[in-house]
């Protein structure tokens, strides 16, 4: 552990809320929404690894690896859905996919 845990938490919080701000702002573009979700998950991984280094426990690293596997499956499904939606309407604008709106 080379820096206090608080600094890691502040860095992870900055990354997470940057991703959240991007997600709220880019809500019209599906690809950029997925990119911002990647940023947020990466910040969560940083917290897990920092905790693992702080207490010398391997579980944090394992959680980071689990998050990575989760992210890969999430991205593959989400990008397949983006390809599917783009095939239907020739756009990735989320505002145009509102047929289920009552």
């Amino acid at each position: 552990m080379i820096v206090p845990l608080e600094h890691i938490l502040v860095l992870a919080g900055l990354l997470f809320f940057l991703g959240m701000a991007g997600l709220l702002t880019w809500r019209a573009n599906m690809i950029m929404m997925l990119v911002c979700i990647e940023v947020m998950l990466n910040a969560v991984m940083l917290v897990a690894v920092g905790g693992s280094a702080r207490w010398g426990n391997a579980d944090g690293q394992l959680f980071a690896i689990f998050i990575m596997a989760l992210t890969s499956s999430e991205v593959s499904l989400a990008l397949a859905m983006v390809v599917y939606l783009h095939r239907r309407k020739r756009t990735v604008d989320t505002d145009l996919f509102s047929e289920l709106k009552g």
Partner: protein
Amino acid sequence: MEQIIFYILAIVTLIATVLAISEKHPVHAILYLVTSLFAMAVIFYLFMAPLVAAFEVILYAGAIMVLFLFVIMMLDLGHPEKGLSPHWKEWLPSLLLAGISIASLTIVTVSRHASSIVSPVSLPIREVAKRLFQEHGLAVELISLQLLFALVGALYLGKQSSPSPPLRPPSASERRAGGEEK
């Protein structure tokens, strides 16, 4: 020395992330995000997690970001002039909300007394693997099932909805048309 490297890498990560989420061009955003992920991998390496650092480079920067690039290039989305980028006024409410959250987090963590810097504990990969496959074996099985479901779902979504035309040898006129295209 390692503290200085950590702070430099933290600044690199933050700047690359800010550039990634504010970039109008999706391909440039992905490349900035790859930069951020590389810096993050070195941070993981500094925190005695070389396995996670290697997976970060191989899986995140190597596989997932390349998947993003493939989809962006395949769908021909790299045109910011098509008007999906937000106006700068749309940044204000989200930045306000994120700023409030960041400020509260910083105040809470700083108001507590700083934890002492304990000596680094090196976790050998053997121990990590033992924990992974002995105590979290069920989680490994669940992750493998989840990856299988994602594979099946991606195949189902990627399948063409219209039935593909039956395979038959191209007729003479089609062959001629194909030759003209070439």
